[in-house]
């Protein structure tokens, strides 16, 4: 178990009658647990082996190599397995409906089995995830993580079928999703990653898969915690407007709250390594009198049963306008980052529908927000889709020819945020 710290950034001063309290809570995990304290892990790599993965042939070959690299990263003692996915799911290794325990021997056997995978068949991602869930169930008490790779759309099952599978698997394991090439659907993989508390990203060239898988597996091996939840207490009469992870990526957690008692809810955040994440919490409280102070929320981290590390979100009503109108830098920054992601999503959607006016306006606003906040990564991706005339005012022109890869990269990575920069002096 590792140690958490939580810090709160907010302007706690409210004018008379105001009820909305906003705060950014930064949670940091030192990840400094020794090997002995680490929870036992279970890892599954799910590789798309549908027909399209064989065209070009180097795609399936690269996927196999990347899987082998990932297998090499798995620590001794970790339960692991490899699944090949087509319109059905098939265990590549081990093949006895369980998970293998990692050792030099089992890793070698697994890599030999991966070498033999062929690209043939369709795509039914829900069935792959279902098999992963069944295999993880044979390794109870471990913290379970999967990597899912696909190159195409989910063709052999309906959206409803996938939704049913996701609802059943939620909380059972964490799944990072990767799309290779440009024939897969961003919204589909995002839905899976979001439900299973994982990340989603695009891999442009098959050759880049190995590095990405290695990084994913190393991160997974570095996780020092079991499942951790963000616990939120709010006073009587208050309501949670939203709880949103805002760094390193934007993820709305509001609907995921599991009630602990009438005033407390837990928001699952999966496993933590040595890392730091920011959350934007917005609470509506019953307004009080001038001079009154109220605890608007108590935020803590819960691993197992015991809450550790807490941050206090407060509200103080004041007549002093200088205090109540002050804008907190962190809250303003992440409100902007959330708007940035929203503008990109809406802009790309409008562009697809041929509403070029809306697309230009939204993507222009996104350029302006990315410039203001110094989000260079997102700015670079935006520049592949629009010609920027004036970044300060968000004056842009849509490019006539946009490579699908550039558009999908922007779409996939639009939720990546940057942290608050140093204060202007």
């Amino acid at each position, binding site marked *: 178990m590792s140690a958490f710290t939580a810090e709160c950034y907010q302007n706690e001063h409210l004018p008379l009658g105001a009820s909305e309290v906003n705060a950014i809570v930064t949670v940091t995990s030192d990840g400094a647990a020794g090997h002995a304290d680490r929870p036992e892990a279970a890892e599954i790599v799910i590789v798309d082996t549908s027909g399209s993965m064989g065209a070009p042939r180097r795609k399936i070959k690269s996927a196999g190599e990347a899987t082998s690299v990932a297998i090499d990263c798995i620590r001794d003692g970790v339960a692991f397995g490899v699944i090949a996915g087509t319109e059905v799911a098939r265990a590549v290794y081990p093949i006895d409906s369980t998970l293998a325990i990692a050792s030099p021997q089992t890793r070698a056997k697994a890599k030999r089995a991966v070498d033999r995978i062929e690209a043939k068949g369709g795509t039914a991602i829900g069935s792959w995830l279902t098999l992963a869930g069944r295999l993880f169930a044979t390794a109870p008490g471990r913290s379970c993580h999967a990597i899912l790779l696909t190159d195409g759309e989910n063709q052999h099952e309906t959206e409803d079928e996938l939704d049913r599978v996701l609802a059943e698997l939620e909380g059972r394991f964490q799944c990072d999703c990767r799309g290779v090439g440009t024939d897969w659907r961003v919204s589909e993989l995002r839905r899976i990653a979001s439900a299973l508390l994982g990340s989603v990203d695009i891999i442009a060239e098959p050759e880049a898969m190995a590095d990405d898988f290695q990084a994913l597996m190393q991160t997974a091996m570095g996780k020092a915690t079991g499942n951790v939840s963000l616990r939120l*207490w*709010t*006073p*009587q*009469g*208050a309501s949670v407007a939203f709880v949103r992870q805002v760094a390193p990526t934007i993820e709305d957690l509001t609907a995921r709250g599991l009630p602990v008692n*009438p*005033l407390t809810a837990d928001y699952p955040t999966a496993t933590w390594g040595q890392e730091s994440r920011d959350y934007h919490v917005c609470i509506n*409280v*019953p307004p009080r*009198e001038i001079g*009154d*102070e*109220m*605890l*608007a929320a*108590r935020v803590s981290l819960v691993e197992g049963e015991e809450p550790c590390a807490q941050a*206090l979100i407060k*509200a103080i009503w004041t007549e002093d306008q200088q205090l109540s109108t002050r804008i907190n830098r962190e809250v303003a920054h992440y409100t902007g980052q959330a708007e940035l992601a929203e503008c990109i999503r809406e802009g790309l959607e409008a562009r697809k529908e041929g509403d070029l006016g809306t697309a230009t306006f939204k993507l222009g606003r996104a350029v302006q927000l990315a410039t203001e906040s110094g989000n260079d990564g997102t700015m670079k991706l935006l520049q592949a889709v629009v010609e920027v005339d004036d970044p300060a005012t968000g004056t842009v022109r849509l490019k006539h020819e946009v490579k699908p890869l550039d558009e999908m990269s922007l779409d996939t990575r639009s939720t990546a945020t940057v942290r608050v920069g140093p204060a202007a002096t």
Partner: protein
Amino acid sequence: MTVACPRGHESQATDYCDQCGAPIGAPPLTAGTTHVFPTVDEVDTSPAARREPCPVCGAPRSGDDRYCEGCGFDFHGPPPAAGAWEAVVTADRAQFERLAVAGISFPTDYTERRFVLADGENRIGRSRGNPDEAVPEIDLAAAPADPGVSRLHAMLERRSDGVIVLRDLGSTNGTTVNDDPVPIAPESPVALGDGDRVRVGAWTTITVHRR
């Protein structure tokens, strides 16, 4: 082990109340208040939040203020008796001179008129002798008539709880009370006490009296 919060809740947490979020250790809102308030009630029932509504206009009483901010009702006044009230109409030269309306002269011979206030509504106005029109209970049409009084000017209501309430009914020239030069808002209730003077038109003053 629980601690009492300033709003009277029992809290397990010792920094802020785990029911309402009030800081523990702040002075109690009302001295000696230690009783427990309902814990799942969303309505704030703490003494600080309780507001006695004005019996006349319903505006919440501000703290222990004697007079209602909404209509001037006297919370400390004698309990309104169900006794009889009358309205005494006079011509007030001071009012006439203050307003100094051009083209209107002060009546040379004005006899005081008395109207007993009936239960419920007593309208103040000026009938024109038209048989199709309702005649206001307090009819100021008899000569010498005040041309500044509207046909339907204001209303004195004697409520069942004994309180006398004045309302301007959207008069042309407005209604003032006592020496306040600012007219009362149309259709807003104003509570009157014994001896209060209602001023309408160029010189008409109506004083309400308990008999």
